[in-house]
């Protein structure tokens, strides 16, 4: 198999793959930022104890978790123009990824908040802190601390999920591979190269995650 592998073509297409890598990294970072905002909002709403906030948050989280990302992506891609909202392909992608990962992050954060001991919250309450202050100074710093490894795991999922944006022709790693496959008819070279770049990102995030886990244990 290797004798048929065209390394020259990979070198020819390397600039495209680097552009794709940049696309994957930027899309993931943008979506992660969006997902954190969505996740914090959904988690706070769910735990607020106010039914009017909690019920929509629960519905949002369960709907997102019970349907495939690809369906959600097409829902926004084909659905938003009908509502008069014209977003670019990458904006649509970032929106779908943010909402999708946001629901999972909301659940991760909820587990983290549950792990904050009751005494802490009671102490905060008796010190006269209001809901926002309790969240800002007591709950979130501790909740985010213990959930960092799980959040990095979600980041790994996010990087891999961003591959689906290739299907709405956003330029990222998988799209670069698709372009190489169709222009030169070299699917093997294209997709194996993309896989290699994804593995690099995966091991990088895994190393960061292992480092954090160690820090959490030794603290």
């Amino acid at each position, binding site marked *: *198999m290797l004798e*048929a592998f065209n390394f020259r073509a990979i070198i020819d297409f390397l600039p495209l793959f680097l552009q794709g890598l940049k696309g994957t990294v930027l899309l993931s970072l943008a979506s992660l930022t969006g997902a954190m905002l969505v996740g914090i909002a959904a988690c706070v709403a769910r735990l607020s104890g106010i039914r009017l906030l909690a019920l929509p948050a629960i519905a949002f989280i*369960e*709907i997102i*978790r*019970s*349907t*495939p*990302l*690809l*369906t*959600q992506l*097409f*829902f*926004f*891609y*084909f*659905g*938003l*123009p*009908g*509502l008069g909202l014209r977003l670019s392909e990458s904006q649509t992608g970032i929106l779908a990824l943010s909402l999708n990962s946001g629901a999972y992050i909301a659940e991760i954060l909820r587990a983290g908040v549950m792990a904050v001991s009751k005494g802490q919250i009671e102490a905060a309450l008796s010190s006269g802190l209001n809901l926002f202050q309790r969240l800002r100074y007591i709950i979130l710093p501790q909740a985010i601390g213990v959930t960092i490894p799980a959040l990095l795991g979600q980041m*790994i999922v996010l990087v*891999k*999920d961003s*591959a*689906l944006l*290739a*299907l709405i022709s956003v330029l990222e790693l*998988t799209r670069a*591979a*698709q372009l190489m*496959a169709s222009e030169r008819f070299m*699917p*093997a070279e294209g*997709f*194996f190269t*993309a*896989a290699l770049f*994804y*593995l690099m990102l*995966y*091991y990088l995030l895994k190393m960061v995650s292992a480092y954090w886990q160690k820090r959490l244990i030794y603290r």
Partner: protein
Amino acid sequence: MWGIYFSNLMESLPLFFKGLWITLEVSLLSLLLSTLGGFLLGIIRSSKVRWLQYILAAYVDLIRGTPFLVQIFIVFFILPEWDIHLEAFTSAILSLTIYGTAYICEIVFGAIRAVPGGQVEAAIASGLSWRQSMQHVVLPQALRPILPPLVGQYVLLIKDTAVVSVIGLTDITRVGWLTVQRIPEGILVFGLVGLFYFAICYPLIWLSNRLEARMTVEGSRL
């Protein structure tokens, strides 16, 4: 406008049910094969043979480190170059099984490793062989903590079957994609597609949560 689209959509409902059938077929077959493969490899991985452990760890990392979309493209486009010609359906099952097996292998391996070492030592000291200690001592104990994450993994796998639509298999997602070309109302069309997935996945998520809750309660009794 919505009224016309809605009645159009109702007319193409049989197509959606055909797509749903394909999704169910692909899901059930690949879940079954992945479960078999995952248990087999998970058990092999917890044997004390070093090189097997390294190979399986590398396999799990390769699968978990790359998107399923890239994996299915590799299976679908590259096997023909080696003169292996598969239909879209077979390619879909094959790639989903390779993918699912890696995740289930990790779950099974993790659960087996969590069984206290003293149990295995006691079994070996009683004269049981490795296979016997696995079968009668370790696996029965590992099975309970395996269940909740296994059901959770099933949900993820069923959702990932949506990706097989890209190699031309007419599953429910592809039916949606084909329908939206005629009825340009994405919210309606993919809302309906989502509804079908929800009907399959939500009960499973509920089951996984319940199994987990039951385990924590029973665990805390200790």
